[in-house]
């Protein structure tokens, strides 16, 4: 069965790019455009990995991450932050609310794909 990734991203273009990249690897991608929608979809589809942006309308990525980590049903699911913010303050805060990794958005998709495949146990 194909692996499922939930992508929480409010910018349609960013979402489209990541979706295209990840789907090329034979991984299913579900996109949520807000934090609330992300939480709802995470509970419903039980993804294998969650990628979340930090700046989101409504509840932000930190809050999403914190709430996901409190969900018992999602206890085994990794949450990776995907943001263009690269200052230590944001990164530290992301880990402090429970993020499993923090990937800085960059025009180098190979890195992102490699990490995702690694976390999904794909070679």
């Amino acid at each position, binding site marked *: 069965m194909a692996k499922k990734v939930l992508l929480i991203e409010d*910018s349609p*273009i960013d979402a*489209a790019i990541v979706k295209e*990249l990840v789907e090329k690897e034979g991984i299913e991608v579900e996109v949520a455009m807000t934090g609330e929608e992300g939480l709802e979809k995470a509970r419903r589809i039980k993804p294998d990995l969650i990628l979340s942006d930090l700046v989101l309308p409504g509840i932000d990525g930190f809050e999403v991450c914190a709430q996901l980590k409190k969900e018992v049903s999602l206890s085994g699911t990794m949450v990776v932050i995907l*943001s*263009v913010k690269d200052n230590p303050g944001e990164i530290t805060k992301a880990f402090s609310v429970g993020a499993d990794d923090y990937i800085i*958005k960059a025009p180098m998709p*190979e890195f992102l*794909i490699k990490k995702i495949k690694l976390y999904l146990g794909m070679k």
Partner: protein
Amino acid sequence: MPFDKSKFIGQFKSETREHIQKLNQGLLKLERAPASKELLEVLMREAHTIKGSATMMGYERITDIAHRMEDGFEKALKQGFMIEKAHFDLLFECLDTIEGLLEDKVTWEAKGINRPYLEGLCGSVERIFSGEVPGKQKKEVMKERGKAKKEDTIPPVISSAAVETIRVGTDRLNKLMNLSGELVISKIRLNELVRSLAESTGYREDIDKNTTALIRELQKADENIDFSTSNIQDEVMNLRMISVSYLFNTFPRAMRDLAREKGKDIELEIRGEDTRLDKTIIDEMKDPVMHLLRNAVDHGIEEPGVREGRNKPASGKIILHAYQKGSQIIIEVSDDGAGIDVNKIREQAVNKGIISGERIAEMADEQIFQLLFTPGFSTKEHVTDVSGRGVGLDVVRERIAKLKGMIEVESKPGAGTRFIMKLPLTLAITESLLVVSGRETFAVPIDAIVETIRVTPKEIKTVETKEAITVRGHIIPLIRLNEIFGISPRGISEKKFFPVVVVQYVEKRAGLLVDRLLGRQEIIGKSLGKPLKKLKNIAGGTILGDGSIIFILNIPSIIESAEGAVVKKPGPEPARHPAKKKQKTILLAEDVLSTAMLEKNILESAGFSVVVARDGDEALKRVSQEKFDLIITDILMPKMDGFELTERLKKDKLYKDIPVIIVTTREGDADKRRGLKAGAEAYILKREFTSEGLLDILERLIG
């Protein structure tokens, strides 16, 4: 794993432009309410989003600028200092630069966006927000922020509410519209077939029960199709309708810059921005509306000192208002400025020889205002003044007329001026009058018709070799439709009366003599295929319910050809178009409306006939449709620039002999070489356009 970004570029650009627009709106509001926390938050988020996708797409220069802006807004928000009035120009410049960077490298480098400029820009933004600039005391600012109003937030460009959206190219919408048009035509045909089937069987007794039942079923199905088809048509039509805010949102920023430049204090109020209109019309209205707004700033609103002397508030008000009235959309541009002096228009019109002193004496004020839209009304002083009242209003009207719209003006000296533009909701459906001439049926668009009358052969007079009739005291040319199209008439001589359709384009009227009037009908116009595109006097075609194909008349071109044509006395032969005056025609490719109008004016006053194309693409199209003696082109244009246009023309056997003049603001030798290498016959600077030099060149090339 190669990753193909190219397919995302279009989406990236259009989304980034939307974010830029929100930032523009936000900054405009922040300029008036610098203490608003909500505004800063929105601005920060928008800059952040641009930064994110620019990074993913590898647009580093955009990332750099957006990054500085985001950081700056964040600092302003968290450390609490006010962005000073003087710094807004720089922030707006950042937005313009990002927008510029969305173009290709040649274009933005031509605009002066290069590495040192970008470094300077980013550095300046950092300095503004670094606190080097003394701002207000922190506490004080925080207090003011607390007071900032809730309503300072920016409305979303697209309502991103619960409705999920996908992007669809307009070409696909057009296809859908064409298909639904064809569906409607088939539906009408089906309606008629079902009706005639029912009628022809209804009186017969030899029809068995089963057949009657089948016919009844068929009628029911036909009704259902009727219902669904009109729903589909409405929906498809609605898809093309977008809110005028797309158009209006671009103006506040431009008006701010313009008012600053002119040293005037102006408030632009926008009303009815939710009004919806066909996208094609919205796209075409940008230049005309901008022109009217610019006029209002330049010539409507007085200097602050003058206003105070007239007991008006120092700040002038311009209102841009859109609303729907029946099947029309009205767009009004009004100002509370100086108004237009009717007597001055009378004076100028007579001096310019546009109209005789006697005629003007009997004209009402409303008619006098219409003179503003006459080509050539502008005075000499105005030619050098790009947006002089009068200059270009003829072009504005022409543009609106093309959209089947109208423009009127009302003005009170001292109190202000109001331009009222009336536009159709959509261009796809035309309410028409069907007329018969010989064996052919034609459709005359209702909006071009003044009235229908009947004339007797005796009433047809011959004036200067042309046929004419008198309608309500005015002599108008009479055009026999069969003669225009070379159709043999049907027993015209025995008739006592002929129906005549009086049509109008701008202020010119003419009577169309036909054999019969059939009645009104809504038709869906379809443009004709390529081989028939060049047909003069025909605007398009449509298929009627009975399956017959008819032509839609192009009234402006018919009225125009009536002016030059010598119509013979009634006879079976078709009228022939006489050789036109040997006036040279110039194609002018220029994307900036004001410049185009200025140049058009100069060329026209030198006796040339001028056709304007707004980019290289359009110019090429025009060249294939019409014969030109000379082409004048600007360099920087959207879609296809002047170099490419010249190269293409010079490579084509058909057009390579048409002389090309390249006009530019840039004095560099490199451009000049490139222009001449592309094959241009001459290269001149914009500032030389008015000089004798140009006329010399024209004389040499096509004299």
